[in-house]
């Protein structure tokens, strides 16, 4: 028995394509407590979204969970029957996606799609369902909800649709909301509004959030803890403070240098090169070929996890190097 709300242990998810096995999520473990906001940061292809889909078990073929466990409220989700899983999806754990424009069914009205979620997970009937839909739409800041509920997704703007998605995800008051790059497809001004809305609702409803993004700036002031993913592995984790002020992995440092900011006038330094080809993950640290500080050992051996505090851990040879240097063993 653990007292974590969600506990992910050694999760491994692979995609089996003709060219071979793509290890999209490779040995990922983390926990999430009630009311906590966890940020998962990484660039495209780092396995953030696949982690989210694995938790919800909504991977589409050829993706498959090949190992590990996902425990929600001490129930094992991996290998659970579809019927049981359906009672959790949307009711206990909800997810919102990157592109609201394509995430809603174009041939049904917005209201119809929220109604569906309510009917699936509550005992409400007829008018009550409709009332609930209107209520949640009002709550997420959709103006004139009576009229809007009767409209089709194509009649909405991207920002409004994301509000609808949030409404649909939260209407059954889930324990966990997974937000998979919720602002990536939106305009910058709208992004801020959506983030503000999520923060507000989190305070009001008290659910836990897993916020997935490629933008460290987005997670900065919302997340209690952050984990950085690269090529399917968590390379560093820590509290927001630790990650921002005292990063321990070269990749995290690289990410921080590439955030534009009004306060520091330093030059933006992009990370060189492209994300790794997941079919050909190097033997050593996956980030090494792009790393400024890359050492010979980085290319050959995967670095062990080093614990810095109760909350912060990182897997980077540079930490070992610094230690060795400090003791004078190497220069």
């Amino acid at each position, binding site marked *: 028995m653990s007292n974590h709300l969600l506990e992910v242990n050694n999760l491994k998810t692979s995609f089996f394509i003709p060219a071979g096995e793509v290890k999209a999520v490779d040995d990922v473990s983390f926990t999430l407590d009630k009311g906590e906001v966890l940020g998962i940061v990484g660039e495209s292809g780092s396995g953030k979204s696949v982690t989210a889909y694995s938790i919800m078990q909504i991977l589409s073929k050829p993706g498959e969970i090949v190992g590990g466990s996902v425990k929600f409220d001490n129930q094992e989700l991996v290998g659970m029957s*579809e019927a049981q899983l359906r009672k959790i999806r949307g009711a206990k754990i909800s997810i919102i996606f990157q592109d609201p424009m394509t995430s809603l069914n174009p*041939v049904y009205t917005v209201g119809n799609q929220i109604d*569906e979620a309510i009917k*699936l997970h509550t005992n409400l009937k007829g008018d009550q369902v409709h009332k609930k839909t209107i209520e949640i739409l009002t709550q997420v800041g959709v103006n004139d909800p009576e009229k809007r509920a009767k409209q089709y997704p194509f009649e909405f703007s991207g920002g409004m649709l994301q509000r609808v*998605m949030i409404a649909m995800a939260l209407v059954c008051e889930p324990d966990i909301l997974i937000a998979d790059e919720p602002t990536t497809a939106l305009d910058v001004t709208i992004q801020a509004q959506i983030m503000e809305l999520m923060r507000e609702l989190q305070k009001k409803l008290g659910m836990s959030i897993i916020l997935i993004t490629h933008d460290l700036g987005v997670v900065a002031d919302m997340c209690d803890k952050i984990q950085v993913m690269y090529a399917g592995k968590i390379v560093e984790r820590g509290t927001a403070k630790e990650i921002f002020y005292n990063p321990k992995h070269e990749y995290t440092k690289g990410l921080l240098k590439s955030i534009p900011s009004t306060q520091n006038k330093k030059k933006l330094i992009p990370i060189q090169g492209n994300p790794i080809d997941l079919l050909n993950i190097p033997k050593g640290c996956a980030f090494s070929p792009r790393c400024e500080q890359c050492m010979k050992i980085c290319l050959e051996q995967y670095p062990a996890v080093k614990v810095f505090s109760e909350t912060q851990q990182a897997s980077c040879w540079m930490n070992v190097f610094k230690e060795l240097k400090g003791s004078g063993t190497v220069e």
Partner: protein
Amino acid sequence: MNKKMLNYILKRFLLALFTIWIVITITFFIMHAVPGGPFLSEKAASPETTAALQAKYGLDKPILEQYFNYLSGVIKFDFGPSLKYKGITVTELIVTGFKTSAFIGGIAALIAILIGVFLGSIAAVNHKTKLDQAIMFFSTAFVALPSFITASILLLVFCVKLQWFPANGLTTKGLILPIISLSLSPMSYITRLTRSSTLDVMGQDYIRTAKAKGVNYWVIIFKHSLRNALTPVITYIGPMLASVLTGSLVVEKIFTVAGIGKYFVSSIVNRDYMMIMGTTIFLTTIVIIMLFLTDIMYKIVNPRVDLE
């Protein structure tokens, strides 16, 4: 149904009317390119027929006047006398024949849609299994089969060799093979269409959303996927009816079904121009109306389509 929709229907209807008028006009004037014109080119026309034509269209009058006479006749669903069948009007022939043709064509289209959608969905749901491969194998083989070839082969196998069915379509049992001949190719096409569009839809983000909401697998298939997957099928219904109608011309001849095709094909051989003109205009009108209805249906099923 809003004002925009009504507006669209009206606009689309006017275009359909205009197209029908164009067809009548072109048909008439093209036929006049035949030496002697459509009314008189056939020496074999009986004196009574000639007299009837003279009275009706004024054969010595200028061509424009003949055209307006013919046009006003067509509007009243009167295509004039047949040159070959003495004392019978083209309209009578069309009406007699079309009852049978519409019956076998309609049944064939219905079978094609129902079985096609069913098989296509089955194949998509069982993607990359033996069942999917088998369905794809047969639909690929049959889609390339012109209806007159299907009809000939069926006639050969089931009427001549096995003698399970009569070789003529005079009885209801005799209509089974013509219907199969007409439906096989469009059915295969719809199967392929449904399969690929279902697979496409199943990969869409909103299906993932539905799954994440906790929606049951079959509800995902029937509520969220099928309606989206069927929109391409709906666009195919119009052209399919056109091809079933024209296909039936030949299939009816092969199985000697007393449909519109039988009269039409014999009118080509006999150069019964009045009949050719009448049938062409009639069938074209039917097809245009079907296309019009398909368009409207498409817009209703698919709300995101721009109505401009």
